[in-house]
């Protein structure tokens, strides 16, 4: 057992901290700290700053911009990034379609897509969930029918996060409706979102924001070259994609940053000395410490990079604490917390105005990426053998 980071890892940490707090524009980090929705331009600029320094896709194969870091270094990279208020590289690009193309795509697909995917010159959207295929993703019904050198896609995807900015969408589509198991007839298709017949419609959320969309496909013609890997093997690639991450599953650094800021908010309303408030800070700090150490333990003690069922623990507990921190902010905000849309014309400080929308918005965290109930199912079955 060893408490401290090695000199090498400590130096790595200092280097990451230095970069994130000096090279990523202040305005972008301030927007993250204020818990605003970032603009498309801000997200692109931030990722391009990272990518230029080789810090956008460190977990990819070295050939395509990866860094061959240890799991612990990747963990440190991710924590320092969040701590500094740097928006993480767009997950659809960096964590989802990029690794799938790198692992299963053709050479031509890799050359065409991977560089602009890393640099966010292509903005990817995710086309997985459907109105009747949420946690039960394999029951998806969007079809792709081969017609000469093309597939013809019909159906509807939903919960497409930031789809309003999307230029390409990676989709799971049903290519064999007669397969003996529903998982077996699915393929992984890359679709240009400017193709005729593809329509993006906004879904307004309970926080008043526009973050997710429906994507409709009506006779959308997709070149057959845009199929990733083998026909009818899309489910394997989706599982690879969803089980790919063991680092960065729990938003520890971001929750710690918000909790630290919330101490300032509590002071500003003279509540940090209130024993009930202080007890919540102390309890949350302790639970976040336990979670951070768990994430470190998973990262520090893994060499193979294989999916670890401990990811479910990190996701479940990480999102619970993220939500708890947002709830504390609402309680600190008090009555002015309802002035969510008062803007700068309101006397309420921005953190007060943001508190309720963020609290409502973060309900998504225990629903997306495998709901917390799905995570409990994974823990019960895979880890406990129940």
């Amino acid at each position, binding site marked *: 057992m060893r408490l*401290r980071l090695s000199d090498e890892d400590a130096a790595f940490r200092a280097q990451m901290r230095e970069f994130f707090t000096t090279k990523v524009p202040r305005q972008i980090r301030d927007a993250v700290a204020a818990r605003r929705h970032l603009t498309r331009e801000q997200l692109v600029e931030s990722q391009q700053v990272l990518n230029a320094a080789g810090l956008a896709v460190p977990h990819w194969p070295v050939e395509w911009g990866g860094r061959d870091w240890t799991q612990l270094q990747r963990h440190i990279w991710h924590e320092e990034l969040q701590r500094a208020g740097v928006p993480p590289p767009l997950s659809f690009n960096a964590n989802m379609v990029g690794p799938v193309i790198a692992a299963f795509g053709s050479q031509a697909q890799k050359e065409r897509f991977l560089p602009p995917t890393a640099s966010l010159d292509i903005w990817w959207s995710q086309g997985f969930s459907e109105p009747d295929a949420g946690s039960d993703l394999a029951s998806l019904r969007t079809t792709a029918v081969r017609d000469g050198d093309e597939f013809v896609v019909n159906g509807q995807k939903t919960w497409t996060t930031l789809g309003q900015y999307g230029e390409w969408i990676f989709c799971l589509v049903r290519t064999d409706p007669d397969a003996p198991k529903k998982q077996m007839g699915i393929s992984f298709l890359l679709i240009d979102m400017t193709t005729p017949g593809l329509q993006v419609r906004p879904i307004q959320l309970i926080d008043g924001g526009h973050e997710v969309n429906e994507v409709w496909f009506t006779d959308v013609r997709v070149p057959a070259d845009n199929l990733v890997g083998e026909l009818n093997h899309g489910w394997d690639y989706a599982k690879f994609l969803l089980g790919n991450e063991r680092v960065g599953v729990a938003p520890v650094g971001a929750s*710690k940053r918000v909790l630290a800021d919330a101490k300032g908010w509590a002071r500003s309303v003279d509540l940090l000395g209130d024993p009930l408030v202080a007890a919540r800070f102390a309890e949350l700090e302790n639970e976040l410490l336990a979670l951070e150490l768990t994430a470190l333990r998973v990262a520090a003690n893994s060499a193979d990079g294989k999916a670890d069922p401990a990811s479910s623990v990190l996701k*479940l507990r990480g999102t619970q604490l993220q939500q708890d921190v947002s709830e504390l902010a609402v309680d600190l905000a008090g009555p002015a917390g309802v002035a969510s849309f008062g803007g700068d014309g309101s006397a309420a400080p921005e953190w007060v105005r943001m508190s309720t929308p963020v609290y409502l918005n973060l309900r998504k965290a225990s629903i997306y990426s495998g709901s917390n109930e799905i995570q*409990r*199912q994974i823990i*019960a079955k895979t880890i406990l053998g129940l």
Partner: protein
Amino acid sequence: MDFTYDAEQVALRDAVRALVGKAYGDFENRRRVVAADPGFDAVLWHGLAEMGVLGLPFAEADGGSGAGPVEVAVVARELGRVLAPEPFLSSVVMAGGLVAAVGTDAQRAEVLGALSAGDRVLAFAHTEPGARWTAAAAAVSAIRRDDGWLVTGTKEPVGHGARADQLVVSAVLPDGGTGLFLVDGSATGLTRQGYPLVDGGRAALVTFEGTPAEPLGEPSDRSADIERVLAGARIIAANEALGAMEVALDTTVGYLGSRKQFGVTLSHFQALTFRAADMYVSLETTRSLVAWASMVLAEAPEQVIEAGSRVGLKVARAGRHIGLEAIQLHGGIGMTAEYSIGTYTAHLTALEQLYGNGHEHLGRLVATVGDHTEVDPLE
């Protein structure tokens, strides 16, 4: 940063697991041992001494084997897994720890040598009726008489206080401050009423009436030493609790997989398996914090008091969550003394109350929550 035991620590773990497993692997044996005084197995105690376990934390010059806190933690976790009732925490870690911290060269060699050899059981007579985990003594006092010292007052509960051959006693000094003294089990003016605890452990009401006592080290204020050794003992107790929680969850999972109702095993009911999953989350996050606190004890002594409270709070929360759910998921059988699971919960409860409960540790963390922006385990 490394959360794993090295090869020697794994070997120690396996050796201790085999030894205590032979004694208590069958829960019925533990029931039999705790049913009669002294409430532990003297043969096993000597076995632990022969293995070098009782002298682990002490310097070789003092008769110990000079190992570190991580090795002590390894042992505690194994004792926790089988609810071994031997007085390792109270005698070796707490009382022995104080002798090691403040005893003179001669006292350390004499007392710790006998303790390490399994020839002497120590107890730390510190808690006073109505006291709540303070480092200071209040109503037990020491006075100087001729060329010696006498202590007077009442301590309770004193872990293994009735069986102990020698007591380490905290007492208010004539000029204030809390001194530490050694009192022999056969001293005049010493009365001890032993009793079993809810988990089968042992404690005693110990009364001193002008009882001859020998200052442990210089007779000066030792409350800072007591606080530090207590915090270290909390971290070791957390390892013991972790071992108990691991087995409590394993036992519960085993039960869910074998007990049948409505024609199927309980594992078919998501209402139950989801609760087991939540217990696992509690266990894993506790495992991490306990490992961290143990490393702090080994490598960053200046942070031990804070780490003791952090791990104390987490273990209290997780111990209640896992312990109470373990009983509920078992149903009626979990209420019986014959079946192990309820005793695991009783032991987790006893550990929490002896070494500082969640309420206490939360209060301590609250007192300092405004002093820092964030908690960074890597700094």
